[in-house]
Structure formats: C-alpha cells, structure tokens
C-alpha cells in the first residue's frame, strides 16, 4: 500500500520540485534524529505527502538551508530550517504505519516474509512505542484501521466500499489531526477519506491478478467475479470517482503554501500512477 502517492516531475516547476525534495530530505533527517539512523530506510513518498499537507497548513515556514546527505556525503541537500512539529508527525506516521504492516504480515504472510518481519520487529517495537507516546491519536487511528481491516476481510462478500473504509477512515482521521479549525478539519477529513480510499483501491487493482491466482482477499475480485470483460473500465471509474471527490474537497481548502505541489499530485501524479497500474502493465 506504499509508494502510490507520487508527484509527476515532468509537470512540475523546478523550484517546486526542489521544495518537494527538500521536504523529502527533511523527513529523512527527522526520522534519523528521532528514531535512529536505521529508521531512515522506511522513508516513503506517502508520508512525504503527509508532511507536505502538514506544512501547507502551518502558520509560517522559515525557509530552507543546505546540508549534507547522510547516505551520500558528497551530495548536498536542502532542508527545512524549522517546522519540527509537522515533520515529527509525518515521521511518527511512517513508523506507525510500517509497524502495523509488519504486524499484518506476521499474521498472514508467507514463511520468508514472516521471518523478515520477526527480525525487524524488535526495532520497530521500540520506535513504535516512542511514536505512540508522542502522537497517541495517530497511533490510535492506524491501530483501529488494522483491526477493522482484519474484520472486513473475513466477509467473503465484502463490497468495494466496505473493504476500502478502514484505510479511508484512517487517512481521514490522520489528516484531520493537522488542524484545530472545525471547518478545515471537515475538509481535510473528507479529502483524506477519498485519498485513503484511492490508495487502498489502487493497491487492490495492482494486486488484482496476483490475488485472483492465489485467491487472496481483494474487493475487486469479489465484485467482478461474475462479469470479467469490462472490469478494467469499472475499476478505472471507481478510482476516478475517488480522485474527483478528493479534488473537490481540496478545492475548498485554504492552503498557505506548497499548493502547486499538492495540485501536481492530484492533477498529474495520481492519475498517471493509476494509468500505469491499470493499463501499461497489462499491455506488456
């Protein structure tokens, strides 16, 4: 479920891409700072998006400074000067979501997957505890998702909406934590719901063939088991619907900065990802 929320670089201005990269690097640095050097490996674009959203709503942004990359000392990177809170939230979300991914894999993964997860677990338990202490609300939202997802997957006739609901609700909650304003909270919560739904469904679409072969749980396989020929078109329409709703909600949001990065993501990045998952891979 990771790695689908990416920007489309070709449609981006250079300065916006620099800012996006700086946020990415700053999140990496924040992970290193709060959860040791090893945790930097879980850095994802999805949590970078969460950091962008958090930063876009903050009152002030103090600008960027230059530093060295820890992975490549010869490379110079831009980092955000301040805004620890926003980055810290995104770092906590990274840790907590990977932790629950490991818990899920231990419950229903293959032998080697389980083994790997068991090896990683001691590190993540410690980091997870730390993140939970800092942002209990984020932890609660992800924990609820994990539990609800388990329940939902036991239903053999689960509908598409029902299957996507736990992930959608999680992102809805997690995004709404970024503000105290009631109106903004409603907008973020709706936007998060549809983005979360899109993320869950694009993952399901991505695994469609695989899940069908192995008869794993997949809401699309359940929904289209009787009508195969047109399923791609229907999957595309359901994903489009999520993106449209997400954009409509975002249009009502008052964003203080980085709006061009979020625009790019919603207008170019996500549809392009969707196209590549649904159409390009199938042609090969």
């Amino acid at each position, binding site marked *: 479920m990771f790695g689908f929320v990416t920007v489309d670089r070709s449609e981006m201005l250079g300065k916006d891409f620099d800012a996006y990269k700086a946020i990415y690097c700053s999140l990496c640095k924040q992970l290193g700072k709060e959860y040791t050097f090893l945790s930097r490996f879980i850095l994802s674009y999805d949590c970078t998006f969460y950091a962008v959203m958090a930063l876009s709503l903050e009152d002030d942004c103090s600008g960027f400074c230059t530093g060295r990359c820890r992975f490549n000392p010869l490379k110079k990177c831009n980092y955000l000067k301040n805004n620890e809170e926003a980055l810290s939230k995104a770092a906590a979300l990274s840790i907590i979501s990977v932790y629950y991914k490991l818990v899920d894999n231990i419950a229903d993964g293959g032998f080697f997957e389980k083994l790997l997860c068991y090896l990683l677990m001691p590190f993540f338990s410690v980091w997870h505890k730390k993140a939970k202490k800092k942002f209990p609300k984020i932890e609660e939202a992800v924990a609820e998702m994990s539990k609800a997802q388990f329940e939902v997957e036991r239903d053999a006739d689960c509908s598409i*909406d029902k299957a996507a*609901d736990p992930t959608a609700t999680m992102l809805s909650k997690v995004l709404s934590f970024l503000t105290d304003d009631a109106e903004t909270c409603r907008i973020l919560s709706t936007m998060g719901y549809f983005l979360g739904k899109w993320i869950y469904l694009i993952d399901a679409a991505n695994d469609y063939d695989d899940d069908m072969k192995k008869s794993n749980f997949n809401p699309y396989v359940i929904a289209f088991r009787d009508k195969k020929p047109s399923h791609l*078109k229907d999957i595309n329409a359901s994903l489009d619907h999520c*993106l449209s709703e997400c954009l409509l*909600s975002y249009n*009502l949001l008052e964003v203080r900065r980085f709006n061009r990065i979020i625009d790019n993501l919603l207008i170019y990045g996500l549809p392009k990802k969707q196209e590549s998952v649904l159409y390009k891979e199938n042609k090969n």
Partner: protein
Amino acid sequence: MNPYQVLGVSETATDAEVKTAYRELAKKYHPDNYADSPLADLAEQKMKEVNEAYDMICDMRKNPSGSHSTYSQGAYNNAQYTHTNFPDVRRLIKEGRLDDAMQILNGVSGVGRNAEWYFLMGMIFSRKGWTEQAYSYFQTACRMEPNNQEFISALNNMNARRNYNPSGYNTVNSGGCSVCDVCTTLVCMDCLCDCCGGNGCC
C-alpha cells in the same frame, strides 16, 4: 472583505480578467458538483462569497456591460423536486444526520421502496463516501423513473465524476467516444452555458 482577493485578481485587472476569474471560480465551486458531497454547505458558502465579490466589483466599476453573478446558490436538489414521500429524510440528509436518515429508510419495506427511496439511499451513501454503492442506487433510481430530472442530473453529475480529467486532456486512452462521453460533454456544455448566463457570451 476584499473582493479582488476573493477572486484572486489584482485591482488593476481588466473587466474581462475579472469575469474570467469569476467564471473559473464559479465552475470550481458550482453547487451541482457538491450536491451529494458531505461538504455541500461549505461549497455553497464559498459560491456565495464569490458571487458577492463579483457583484461588488461590478458595482464599484459601474460597468454597464458587466453582468452580475449568474450562478444560483442552491443545488438542484434543494429546489427542483415538487413532490416527496420522504420530507424528513431529506431534511436529515441536509443536516448531515446520515445515520438517522438511513434508519428511517431501512424501516421502509416493499412497495414503499420507490425510485425516490433508491435516490435518497444513494445520496446518503455518497455523503458517507461509499461511492460505488451510491452509484448503483442512483442507477436504480433512474431506471425506475427515467423521466425524473432530479435523479437524472444526480446520476449525470456522478458519471462526470467517474471520469477524472482535471488537467484537460485524457490521461487514460480508453479509445473512441462512447455514448456516455457524449452525455458528459453535453452536461459540461450545459454548465458552461449556465455560467455565461445568457449574456450573449456563448
């Protein structure tokens, strides 16, 4: 309120620029887009602000050719239905009390489940974010009463949203132009015509 700020143009913008900015925003916040969205009230509020800002600028400039705001504030579902079997359910949906509305509808059985019942179920699911379920209820409502304008425009709006194309060109090559595309185009053109408000712009 600075009306220029609301429309996102500078005070030195020409009348045409102001009008273009107004039209863009009106298209963005058009109540029809949000009719079955949980944020319907916020969109309506935004639309009102934009209308007011545009009217203010028109008044300030006293431009005889400048038309006033032409977008209506209410969504189609507020005004267009003449007869309803479920006034309470409609009120609850408007107030955002979706679970209560759902409970009343679930209590209806047999012949009581008419086209409007399916339409309102779709409305509730849409506001909950259960898009696939909502779509199927809207489709059923339209099948049962194919001449009901309220149901048809709700379904058409949803069909338009099920074809995501914000950047203006088709990113997905589905090939050809289907009947559905023609319908969507007609709906879009209709919106654009509304936007010009019969002022001879299109």
